[in-house]
């Protein structure tokens, strides 16, 4: 390693004073980045990773205080640079930055062209025409079709992925030496995420930039980063090359985090690991090791003494007492399938409990009072069976109709044609109460699915009260029992949702869904708003409850690693249609539809030796208002032919798998990253 450092941070701290106490978001971290390298900073929410990113160019919120021994950027110490010097010499010029929210990070009232060119004209003595030329070049480079006409467009006319491309182009206008990307793909769909990451990887190589990539996604960081720094509670607990950190993690937190990721231990792990407890309060000083309270290896010293930073090699460090006494106790409860073969015998398919029969749903959207009515086909002749005791995963990107379908199944949305039947009954004819007893939802965001004005006990027991099931005391007993089932301590009975952690809230939401003993539970992205360690807990809980209570799940998700872990069968949706549906092993290992194949390519498993694959899909998810003719997937399909453009594909069954594609018989999936 002879290359010089471009960025060297020593002892950086960020504090944010609040009403009651001072929040110590970053606690004296040190980082080193070489020219041309990509450093991935990984951590869960609240770990201080974004604050670290903002602190480098002092873009922190006004109330935050930054302190550092040095932030050495290419020979000059940024801690000594005032606001003026940073603004005129560093920001947007030598260091570019991309943010998480493409929808809000561009100024809504100015055109794309103005926002791109001003970055250049602000710092350099160039004419508007020159800047425009550069903007067009860059837009082309980041893969926006028809770049010249984009300049006149406004942010609201672009999709999220397009806006993120504009953000990248904007950050690159002055050819920065360092690019800081703060969760650049978190708000985007998986196929777009893969495109953007591939683009960043490509551009970095081409321009010889250094990059700091901040993310919570271990898969993303494993593919994109050369070096990784793992953050926990404001501190960097482990550093090293991606290979070293992910293949041979030293810190118990890193180990635990990896155990929580579905698929890390191979595809058939029976149980995910989980990290017990919660992140300690970020206010005040932490005595000893911040992770001690959650660490299975913790000994007394961990709780009292600051752990030492141990150096294993150049750039390879971890901060841990690493007590010998507990060396072999580093277990987070993950169990491999091998030990549980007996339990994992393939289930015999149960009876069909729910049938979706040629359901179509069209919304009519009118723009403005005198605008034309346009129809939006949310569901197009969807057929689906859910069988007793199975987990059926419904996969698709945002806007594909997943939510409309789950609402229709719950009877909250009337289909235009077709029907949903639960056993013998058609769901629209069932009284609300009876329907509610058979089918219940669990939602994505536990912060919005619980009424902030009701106590946890009230929330969980509410379905019983609404449907007048049992006496008061019976209801109470049931709620307590359910809280035990879902792992909520008794003391939260009278607490409000605000007082609970995200994981606890999701447990409460699960309790509410299960209290009436429904047959079918619709899980609508139940873990995508949660940190990976909490996600593991919830996924484990859902699987346990299914076995205990004999439940059937419809599991709506975009995350194929979760599907791999949870599902018995998979249905893939695209633009309101089910394009492929079959057994999990069939669909995920031998997809027959090019879209399924592309989704699989876009799902980034933890593989430090691989890079981000070239995107198999061109273009973006189309506007459902303008459905393409023929096969709706054809504009993005790598194997589309004339027939696909003209005729709607006929559904057929190939090897027990339902598929809707003209090329299904000849298409074969070539895994891009295995």
């Amino acid at each position: 390693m002879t290359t010089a450092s471009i960025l060297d941070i020593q002892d950086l701290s960020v504090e944010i004073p609040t009403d009651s106490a001072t929040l110590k978001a970053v606690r004296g971290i040190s980082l080193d980045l070489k020219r041309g390298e990509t450093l991935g900073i990984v951590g869960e929410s609240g770990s201080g990773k974004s604050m670290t990113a903002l602190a480098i160019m002092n873009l922190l919120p006004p109330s935050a205080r930054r302190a550092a021994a040095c932030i050495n950027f290419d020979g000059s110490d940024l801690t000594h640079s005032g606001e003026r010097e940073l603004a005129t010499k560093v920001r947007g010029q030598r260091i570019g930055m991309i943010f998480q929210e493409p929808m809000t990070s561009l100024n809504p009232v100015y055109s794309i062209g103005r926002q791109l060119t001003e970055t250049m004209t602000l710092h350099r003595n160039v004419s508007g025409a020159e800047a425009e030329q550069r903007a067009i070049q860059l837009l082309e480079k980041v893969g926006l079709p028809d770049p010249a006409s984009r300049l006149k467009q406004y942010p609201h006319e672009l999709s999220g992925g397009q806006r993120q491309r504009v953000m990248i182009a904007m950050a690159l206008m002055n050819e920065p030496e360092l690019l800081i990307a703060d969760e650049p793909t978190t708000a985007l769909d998986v196929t777009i995420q893969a495109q953007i990451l591939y683009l960043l990887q490509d551009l970095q190589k081409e321009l010889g930039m250094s990059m700091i990539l901040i993310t919570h996604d271990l898969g993303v960081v494993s593919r994109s980063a050369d070096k990784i720094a793992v953050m926990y509670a404001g501190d960097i607990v482990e550093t090293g090359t991606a290979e070293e950190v992910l293949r041979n993690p030293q810190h118990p937190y890193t180990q635990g985090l990896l155990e929580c990721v579905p698929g890390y231990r191979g595809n058939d792990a029976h149980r995910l690991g989980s990290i017990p407890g919660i992140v300690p309060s970020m206010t005040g000083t932490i005595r000893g090791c911040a992770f001690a309270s959650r660490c299975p290896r913790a000994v007394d010293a961990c709780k009292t003494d600051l752990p030492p930073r141990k150096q294993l090699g150049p750039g390879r460090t971890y901060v841990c007492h690493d007590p010998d006494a507990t060396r072999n106790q580093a277990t987070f409860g993950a169990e491999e399938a091998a030990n549980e073969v007996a339990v994992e015998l393939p289930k015999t398919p149960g009876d069909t409990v729910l049938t979706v029969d040629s359901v179509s749903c069209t919304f009519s959207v009118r723009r403005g009072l005198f605008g034309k009515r346009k129809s939006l086909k949310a569901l197009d002749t969807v057929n689906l069976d859910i069988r007793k005791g199975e987990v059926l995963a419904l996969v698709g990107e945002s806007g594909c109709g997943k939510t409309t379908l789950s609402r229709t199944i719950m009877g909250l949305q009337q289909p235009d044609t077709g029907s949903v039947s639960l056993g013998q009954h058609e769901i629209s004819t069932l009284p609300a109460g009876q329907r509610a007893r058979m089918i219940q939802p669990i939602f994505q965001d536990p912060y919005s699915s619980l009424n902030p004005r009701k106590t946890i006990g009230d929330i969980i027991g509410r379905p019983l009260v609404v449907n007048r099931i049992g006496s008061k005391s019976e209801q109470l007993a049931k709620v307590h029992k359910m809280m035990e089932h879902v792992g909520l301590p008794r003391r939260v009975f009278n607490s409000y949702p605000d007082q609970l952690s995200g994981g606890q809230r999701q447990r409460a939401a699960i309790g509410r869904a299960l209290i009436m003993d429904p047959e079918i539970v619709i899980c609508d992205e139940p873990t995508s708003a949660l940190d990976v360690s909490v996600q593991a807990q919830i996924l484990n809980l859902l699987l346990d409850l299914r076995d205990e209570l004999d439940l059937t799940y419809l599991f709506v998700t975009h995350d194929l690693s979760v599907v791999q872990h949870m599902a018995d069968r998979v249905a893939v949706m695209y633009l309101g249609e089910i394009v492929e549906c079959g057994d999990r092993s069939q669909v995920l290992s031998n997809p027959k539809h090019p879209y399924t194949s592309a989704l699989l390519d876009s799902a980034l498993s933890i593989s430090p030796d691989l890079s981000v694959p070239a995107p198999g899909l061109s273009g973006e998810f189309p506007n459902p208002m303008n459905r393409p003719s023929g096969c709706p997937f054809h504009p993005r399909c790598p194997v589309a032919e004339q027939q696909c453009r003209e005729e709607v594909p006929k559904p057929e069954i190939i090897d027990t798998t339902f598929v809707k594609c003209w090329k299904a018989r000849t298409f074969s999936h070539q895994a891009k990253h295995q």
Partner: protein
Amino acid sequence: MLNYVLRRGFMALLVALTVSFGTFALFHFATDPAQTIAGEDAPQEMVDEIREQYGFDRPVLVQYGDWLGGVLQGDFGKSYFWKQQVVELIQEHAKVTILLALSALMVTVAIALPLGISAALKPNSWVDRLALSTAVSAQAIPNFWLGLMFIILFAVTFPIFPVSGDATWKHYVLPSLVLGASSVPAVMRLTRTGLLDVLSSDYIRTARAKGFMGYRLILQQAMRNALLPIVSVLAVQLGHKLGGSVVTESVFSMNGLGRLAVESIFNSDIPTVQSLILIFVLTFVLLTLAADLINAWLDPRIRMG
């Protein structure tokens, strides 16, 4: 854009018609115009005769249509009380109100905008606290009382400005201050929160990451967004001021439309009252329409949405 303008224009017209018909109906059912014209002690036959002669016995919608037809030709009817064409009355009184409203708006803008902007730029500083306490106090002072205090102060202690009438520009100084002060809290608070909102937005962080700072950050990045709510609130405030500054005109004895309206109400002078209300409402909807159009020009999301 044309669609947007047409839509807003249509709505504005609909609102103006609904409101003016509402007041027309209110007076129609609640008072007896025939009695008013005839006088309190007039014999019943005379009242009946007047009722028939003026057509007050016809359905309210017909009478309204009749009146509106006149209005469209510039005939607002004849005042019962002043025995004069309403158009003339309005022409006589409008100048005072327009002058007063515009000068009061200038007072509001001169105080509220700088205060609100500096408060937002330095939240929790002394400027911010000053701005907020100004808002809280100004909100609590009864407007008519502030006027009286000014009169006591200036008439007795510092006789610089006249305290009654509308003859010279000097007569407008004190009323403008009083009327202008009444809008300061609303405009100031909105300016402050609006700008704070913009400054804490993601796109301002992006602009800072691009190297914008200081006045360029405010003027070239934040101002246009922050202006949107300010334009709206100023239109509303100006609308209210043109809609008869009843209190200020009464306190300072100015012969404006507000005072005309009050006296017409006291004298059950229905043609004058309903003409004034129609004019006030029309002014208001046109001003808010103008504000919406300015905002559409400022913000492409409105323009294209």
